[in-house]
């Protein structure tokens, strides 16, 4: 068991090496390797069922791995029980102790680690002040609102000063406004504490705003590791390209002929010779990805796509225009200043620099 002195603030790095998890015949995680540096905020992003929560629970010690190792700093921890790993875990459902007051909830781990009473008092009130729950210390969890419970759950993690914070979709039970506020607060908290954090979410807005490093997971494999900007602007494969970005990237499948012209399956053709030169073998099957905001209106002579507006989502600042271009359906994000009418004909093209090319699922640079 840890002593009080060992609970002092101690920021650590996390190394996950070739971690795998199988459950019966199904492989939940396959050879996952990554590191989270001292003080880094790392987000595991992926759709539900991709294995991200399992990964987090293995790091916490709540589940065992089928193979591979987990190190915190230089200590191998994957064989230790959770209580010996010095990590804090914030649960999606908060998992507060319903029979204890907020104060007791916050001080529980300190009590277990034999911290002196007045020290517990100081640390709990400090954290309660930080999270603005100091008026609720004598309440039981069921007397609190969702947001307050979330703060208590956070506080319970912070008060311990653990080596590593683990978050399992902590904001997913909050309503949209509260979620946005808590997201900002979490970001501030990280800046203030400077702790190492590993955060699981399926919400790309959370991932992009909070994560210094984002790990995109799908089907138990790492799809890409990078900053928000890298993930967004240089998605390494079709999955990342389609998962990140709202509305989704437009994909056009087709065959490239010897002159750099793409013949899409939907019958639309356009010239990619400016950007494919040397990078793509002629006659290759390609998937072209274009972000909705990269489509821009142009003169009919320069158009790659000519289509009619079938549906317009007006968001005030700009609008998402759903277009039918022959057999192709595209979404374009256009400025709201010049309103688009339903059925209106639009000519669009793209800055070739902003076109993403994928061959057999992978990005071509």
């Amino acid at each position, binding site marked *: 068991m840890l002593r009080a002195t060992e609970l002092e603030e101690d920021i650590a790095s996390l190394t996950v090496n070739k971690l795998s998890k199988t459950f019966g015949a199904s492989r939940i995680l396959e050879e996952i390797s990554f590191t989270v540096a001292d003080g880094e905020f790392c987000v595991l992003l992926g759709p539900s069922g991709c294995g991200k929560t399992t990964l987090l629970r293995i790091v916490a010690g709540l589940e065992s791995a089928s193979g591979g190792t987990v190190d915190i700093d230089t200590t191998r921890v994957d064989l230790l029980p959770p*209580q010996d790993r010095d*990590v804090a875990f914030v649960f999606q459902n908060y998992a*507060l*102790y*319903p*029979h204890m007051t907020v104060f007791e909830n916050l001080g*529980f*781990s300190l009590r*277990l680690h034999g911290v002196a009473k007045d020290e517990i008092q100081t640390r709990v009130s400090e954290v309660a002040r930080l999270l603005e729950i100091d008026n609720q210390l004598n309440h039981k969890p069921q007397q609190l609102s969702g947001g307050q*419970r979330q703060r208590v759950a956070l506080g319970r993690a912070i008060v311990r000063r653990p080596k590593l914070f683990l978050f399992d979709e902590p904001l997913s039970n909050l309503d949209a406004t509260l979620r946005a506020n808590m997201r900002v607060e979490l970001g501030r908290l990280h800046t203030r504490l400077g702790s190492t954090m590993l955060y699981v979410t399926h919400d790309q807005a959370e991932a992009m705003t909070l994560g210094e490093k984002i790990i995109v997971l799908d089907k138990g494999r790492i799809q890409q590791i990078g900053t928000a900007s890298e993930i967004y602007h240089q998605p390494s494969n079709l999955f990342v390209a389609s998962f990140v970005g709202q509305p989704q990237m437009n994909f056009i499948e087709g065959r490239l002929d010897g002159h750099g012209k793409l013949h899409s399956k939907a019958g639309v053709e356009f010239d990619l010779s400016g950007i494919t030169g040397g990078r793509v073998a002629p006659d290759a099957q390609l998937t072209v990805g274009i972000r909705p905001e990269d489509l821009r209106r142009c003169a009919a002579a320069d158009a790659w796509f000519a289509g009619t507006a079938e549906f317009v989502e007006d968001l005030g600042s700009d609008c998402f225009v759903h277009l039918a271009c022959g057999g192709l359906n595209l979404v374009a994000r256009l400025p709201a200043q010049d309103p688009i009418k339903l059925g209106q004909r639009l000519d669009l093209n793209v800055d070739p620099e902003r076109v993403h090319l994928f061959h057999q699922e992978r990005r071509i640079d």
Partner: protein
Amino acid sequence: MKKFAFAASVAAIGTLTLLPFVWFVLTSWKSAAEITAIPPVILPSVHWDNYRAAITRYELLHYIGNSAIVASATTLISLAIASLAAFALARFKLRWARYYLMLLLALSMFPQIAIAGPVWRLLNFLDWLNSYHGIVAAYISLTLPFAVWVLTTFFQELPYDIEEAALIDGCSRWQALRLVVLPLAAPGLFTAAILVFIHAWNEFFFALIILTYPALQTLPVGIALFPGEYTMPWGEIAAASTIATLPLVALTLIFQRRIVQGLSAGAVKG
């Protein structure tokens, strides 16, 4: 109309359930003449003689003492074993847990008369007949399957997150059980405890065959032995039965609040 029908059926069921109890409470207050009167006297003239006689002449308090010892010991030991067993059955991913629970249920369905012989021989072999530990051991084996069932269901309903939070916070499995799971399972524990206690308090048949020394006999046996060769002391029996029921009524009323106190409300998103 609907309200009236509801109230009427509640009253009818209540009356039916309470009638025997009310009858012997009334009997306990009657004089000997009123008890045997024909036609029956319904309302007694309120005598306390039967109570006095039950306590002094028939040594009721002594039987109550024995019953209290036996029922409390049964409850404590049965629950201690059952809570550990139920925790394991509910929490550890045991492949055979379901079959084990079914087996327990099947075992508890044996009629007592079918196992009376073996139980008696076993206790005789151990030289445990006419002892508190003998009767308590028999009662534990009778109440355990039921207690395990109640508690397993209860533990299964407790959110697992809370326990995991306790492990992360630094609890060992034992501490998690003691500091988090058991307090949360308190309503379930009280429910099981009361039912086990009532069973042990009321049990007659095993007590009759296992305890033949008057010094060790429990209430049901003691009261059953009130009738003498030429006497049938209905008044004293009624008084003793009334007193015997009081602890159960009191226990249930005291713990009723704990039982319904949905303690786990607010633990997870509510």
